């Protein structure tokens, strides 16, 4: 198991994702002799997990069952322990494509936060790329480094505990892409430029407030970035359901009375009257998808 490579069987030391039901997932550190409590009962790692195939159904002590899944950055994003507000898959997917990330890309990121985006980046740039991630909070930086090691991706990432606005990313002239998710991204733009390859690259800044976006765009333009554009991506989930629509009853059909002779001879129609129609459709969710933030992209030209 690793977050950048699939394997088929669960092993001691793996991180597996337990699927408990719709929208309910939980990460589990697989260990010989350990146990995990779930609402369906206890999962005993040695017997229920180790050696089993990823994707298997596991029956818990109380009788209920769960599925055990191979970790992916997407599953991690919805099950990881939050230390900060995180980026969700919708934004992550847009960022990945718009920054043109692919195997071999060198990426600089700040702040690391809870590592949601970091894991997705690592998955995309493996096996030959590298991620330089900067986090100014010491404990978060340490926790992130720990997780990367547990998830067997530490060879692809360097965590630096410093303030990107003061000290930059710690590298220069190497990055194909830079990502900023910090309160004052305009202060880090010049450091982003330094970290990027001379031949050019892409930059992205994520900010919840439009005022932040405006200041960042100005800073990007001042530093000579081109193709500056801001987007917002929203995901709408459709609830698939079967609905039953009743049919109105306008009373018996009056045209039968125009030919009384014919009506008397023919037996009265005994077909049952349809009272409702059932159809499969989707309903929009109760709440409109929430705003996460604005994504500003730009290109650094050759310098």
């Amino acid at each position, binding site marked *: 198991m690793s977050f950048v490579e699939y394997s088929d069987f669960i092993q001691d030391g793996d991180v597996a994702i337990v699927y408990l039901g719709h929208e309910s997932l939980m990460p589990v550190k697989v260990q010989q002799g350990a146990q995990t409590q779930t609402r369906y009962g206890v999962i005993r790692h040695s017997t229920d997990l180790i050696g089993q195939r990823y994707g298997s159904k596991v029956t818990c002590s109380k009788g209920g069952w769960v599925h055990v899944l191979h970790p992916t950055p997407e599953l991690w994003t919805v099950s990881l322990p939050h230390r900060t507000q995180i980026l969700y898959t919708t934004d992550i997917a847009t960022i990945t494509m718009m920054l043109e990330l692919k195997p071999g890309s060198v990426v600089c990121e700040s702040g690391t936060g809870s590592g949601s985006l970091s894991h997705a980046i690592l998955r995309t740039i493996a096996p030959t790329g590298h991620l330089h991630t900067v986090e100014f909070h010491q404990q978060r930086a340490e926790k992130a480094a720990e997780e990367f090691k547990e998830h067997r991706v530490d060879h692809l990432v360097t965590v630096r505990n410093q303030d990107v606005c003061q000290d930059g990313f710690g590298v220069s002239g190497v990055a194909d892409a830079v990502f900023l998710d910090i309160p004052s991204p305009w202060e880090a733009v010049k450091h982003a430029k330094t970290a990027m390859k001379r031949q050019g690259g892409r930059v992205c800044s994520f900010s919840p407030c439009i005022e932040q976006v405006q200041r960042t765009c100005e800073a990007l333009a001042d530093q000579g970035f081109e193709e500056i*554009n801001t987007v917002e991506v929203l995901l709408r989930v459709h609830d698939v359901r079967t609905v039953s629509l009743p049919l109105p009853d306008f009373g018996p059909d009056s045209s039968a009375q125009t030919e009384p002779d014919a009506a008397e001879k023919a037996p009265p129609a005994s077909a049952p009257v349809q009272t409702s129609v059932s159809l499969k459709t989707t309903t929009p969710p109760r709440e409109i998808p929430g705003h996460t933030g604005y994504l500003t992209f730009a290109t650094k030209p050759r310098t």
Partner: protein
Amino acid sequence: MADNGDEDSQYRIKQGDYVVLKRGNIFKAVQIQPKKKVIFEKQWFFLDGAVGNFYSTTFEIVSGALQPQKLKNTDSFTDAKEAGTDNRNIVDDGKSQKLTRDDIEDLKEKGLEGQEIIQHLIDNSSTFKDKTEYAQDKYIKKKKKKYENTVTIVRPSCRILAMMYHGREPGKICHLRYDTLAQMLTLANIHAGSKVLVFDTCAGLVLGAVMERMGGYGSVIQMYPGGEPVRAGMESFGFPAHFHDMLHGFPICRVNALLAGTLDTTAKDPSAGRACFFFSLLKLSEMFIALLFPEETEKLEFKKIFYVFVFVLQAQERLVKLEEKRKKLAAAAALLEGRNADGLVIASRFHPCPVVMGLLPFLAPSRPFVVYSQYKEPLIECYNKLKEHGGAVSLRLTDTWLRHYQSFGRSNVSLKTNGHDKLAHLKVT
């Protein structure tokens, strides 16, 4: 600034490169070939002038040829010039511009650059100085769109090609919008080293996008309907040769046979082919002999010999091609037989339900799959079918909305675009 020749050569445009022509948000994918004329935004030109320059260079189109733009033109049209506060006194009588259509054509013929023409238009507009700054910018933007004759040559990427196809030929890609494609690639966990099945009738764009994210590692099996796979979109990515080694194709008309174990990919008796060849050769020599001794045959035999010769060569070529095709089919079948693919991506004009049900058996447990459809109803069917069938968790039917903001610069344009639907699942045992 000393350029290290070796280090930078990979950033230069070369003959044979697949590139993308760009002007603003208009893109067109072409291949750099000598003496090849292309048309882009109503202008014809040769691409030869681009070779040797760096990617992302902007060129001027001058008399059908490309020349690198001399100076990076900063917009100096409105530097410290006057502007008005509102339009209460501006009358739209169609007489503000003093230059006539003929005048402008003359300027164009003189070979004036787009920038210069625009400056002339501004200078000859009686109302320009009364417009507000925002209106002036809007005016300049409009004129630029009309009179600009620059083109930038950029490297193809999934982002650029997806935007291009969506802007130019959305019908060819089942109206797949680029942000939806982005979601699909991430949700399907496409990464280097995996084995991915792709069913794509989007001109090969989705296939190319998947291959880009795999970086040449692992394998991609393109399942295709009909006789031949469509790969035009994929070719536009300009992948290095070794990327093609990881790409396989498998016709879906053989899927059932493969699943039933009845697919025959063994080599047909090779000696039969050889026999055919030698027989033709024999016939050929017979005819030659006949020619050498004309008293027994007519001169027309010579023509017949030529045709037979060509036929023999073609037959041989066909045999070689068939053999190659068989080998490729066998290789693809071998990859599929294990039923352990790591990802499945479906984006087609076909009804998604049977496609998913037909290809799902090839996917390993605990692996994601994504289905795109332009329409919601077939995906609803899919969703219900999969729920009934079991074996899949975390089913979600979603669509994405993308909104552009222009918070930098003068105009505030906000475009709301509607997405199309996709269904993402995770397969389990």
